[in-house]
């Protein structure tokens, strides 16, 4: 019963409209525009999250436990924040009348209702998913390995790139997939902070909401697309975590397949 309850809505999306019509509905202008906006903003967001989140996560993971716990809790805050609160927060910080509004005005930057605003909203809500998974991935690296690298002459940079990063790669990939899934589904903060302007700030999630009134089949088609993307993400997270546990766990006493000569 419980399982059916969870699966039924997902099946229903595909059941209502035949696949052929789903495809043609995706060909509508609104759907295509939303797809372009979503892909563009999410790629930029993911690039930002990976570029800043990875070193930040490594920094956090290598701090002493008490400081680490405090920082991780701060990072996790946007995770539990209601999306509407996130939207208000972003407006209060970066909006024209916000905390940094005056400074940004003086610099001639106006981000309200632009794709930059979408990127900020997506980055704000999605990055904690990446950072907390990445912290856990770096923490899972056997501390003897970076220590061994240091005794072998590797400075902090080499330890990070040659040892910590490759060993945490599986976990980092899983975190990135989670953040990406959260990012493309972003709705609340985006609609409040960036609006829902077709071709500019309307992402797929926002388009579903708008098409729901205009053309239910298009809304269904976009939903079907997002179901497929989400399913793929879920699957890749599972595979990446499995691969990770196979690559970083040291197996000191595993029975050997070779015999020593």
């Amino acid at each position: 019963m419980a399982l059916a309850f969870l699966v039924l809505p997902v099946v229903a999306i595909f059941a209502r409209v035949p696949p052929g019509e789903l495809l043609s509905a995706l060909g509508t202008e609104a759907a295509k525009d939303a797809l372009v906006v979503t892909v563009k903003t999410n790629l930029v967001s993911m690039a930002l999250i990976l570029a800043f989140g990875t070193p930040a996560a490594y920094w956090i993971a290598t701090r002493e436990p008490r400081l680490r716990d405090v920082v991780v809790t701060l990072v996790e805050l946007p995770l539990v924040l209601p999306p509407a609160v996130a939207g208000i927060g972003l407006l209060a910080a970066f909006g024209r009348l916000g905390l940094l509004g005056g400074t940004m005005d003086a610099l001639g930057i106006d981000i309200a209702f632009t794709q930059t605003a979408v990127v900020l909203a997506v980055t704000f809500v999605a990055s904690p998913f990446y950072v907390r998974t990445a912290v856990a991935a770096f923490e899972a690296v056997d501390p003897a390995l970076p220590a061994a690298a240091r005794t072998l002459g590797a400075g902090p940079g080499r330890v990070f790139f040659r040892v910590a990063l490759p060993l945490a790669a599986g976990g980092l990939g899983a975190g990135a997939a989670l953040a990406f899934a959260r990012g493309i589904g972003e709705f609340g903060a985006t609609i409040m902070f960036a609006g829902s302007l077709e071709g500019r700030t309307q992402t797929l999630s926002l388009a579903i909401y708008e098409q729901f009134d205009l053309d239910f089949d298009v809304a269904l088609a976009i939903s079907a697309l997002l179901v497929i993307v989400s399913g793929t993400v879920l699957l890749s997270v599972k595979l990446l975590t499995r691969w990770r546990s196979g690559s970083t766990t040291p197996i000191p006493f595993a029975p050997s397949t070779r015999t020593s000569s």
Partner: protein
Amino acid sequence: MALRIDYSHSLRPFDAHVELTVAAGETLALVGPSGAGKTTTLRVVAGLLRPDRGMVAVDGETWLDTSAGLERPAEQRRVGYLFQEYALFPHLDVAANVGFGAPRGASIDELLERFRIGALARARVRELSGGERQRVALARALARQPATLLLDEPLSALDAHTKTTVRGELHELLRELGLPTIVVTHDFEDAAALADRVGVIVGGRIVQQGPAAGLVAEPGDAFVASLTGASLLPGVARAAPDGLTEVVLDGGGSAWSTDAATGRVGVAIHAWEVALARETPDDSSLNHFRGAITSVVPLGNRARVRVGDLVAEISSASLDRLALQEGDVVVASFKATAARLVPLA
């Protein structure tokens, strides 16, 4: 080329204070219970742990001197550090592991051949046996061209069968290299086989050091005695006629020793000094204890037989001749000259 260490560091239950010098070509074994400060000492030398106070110098080069505010980072100290369970990089193959710390342009093929892992150059760590891992870890540590070697439990990850062979090879290697070396182990037998000198570290202090044979012959305290594999009978010592010492044992009866002591002591007696008989023999031994055999453990051509608090090591031939079994009542004997008295707290 010597390694000099002198540091103090607060560990949770106690403060470690270790001062020692290892000469060029000398191997010092640090033995002691876990948490005594053995690995801490290696980490201080390698620069993985900054002690509260101290200095480390190798070959006249100062790596650490807290009083002068001098601290060379770990990556700039030429140590060959063999980690417990080896800490090989699982994402790299054998050749990349060995080459990790090699100077630019250095050829590692020679090292791979020397450690008989040339054929495994492309193998991943998880495909290796325990003995192979140990050789890869040693080759990796030596590729760095270290000025000192630090080996943390180099044999504990190996099965008993491989261990004896690997121990012999390691001993040979240490002699060839001629580097000041510290071996950390909890196994006195390994320490005796590998090291020129054994330092016993308990609660952050070196309580006794000297050649392994010296520690066996004259254990300084009860811990060293039990570490060397001796049985320990606690009691109270008092002077007896003829220059002997009588120890009134807590477990009943008395033991005699030629060592002088008074007050609370342990009678330390090695298993190979204890003889077994069905009846009390009329021999030169002063100490005879009658009791039931509680266990018989065969060890190849020998057997360890436990009688009360005493362990006797006898040949399998004797075991068969006397037809000893668990539950049999026998007499365990040892000479007063073989009974060492160690102070007890």
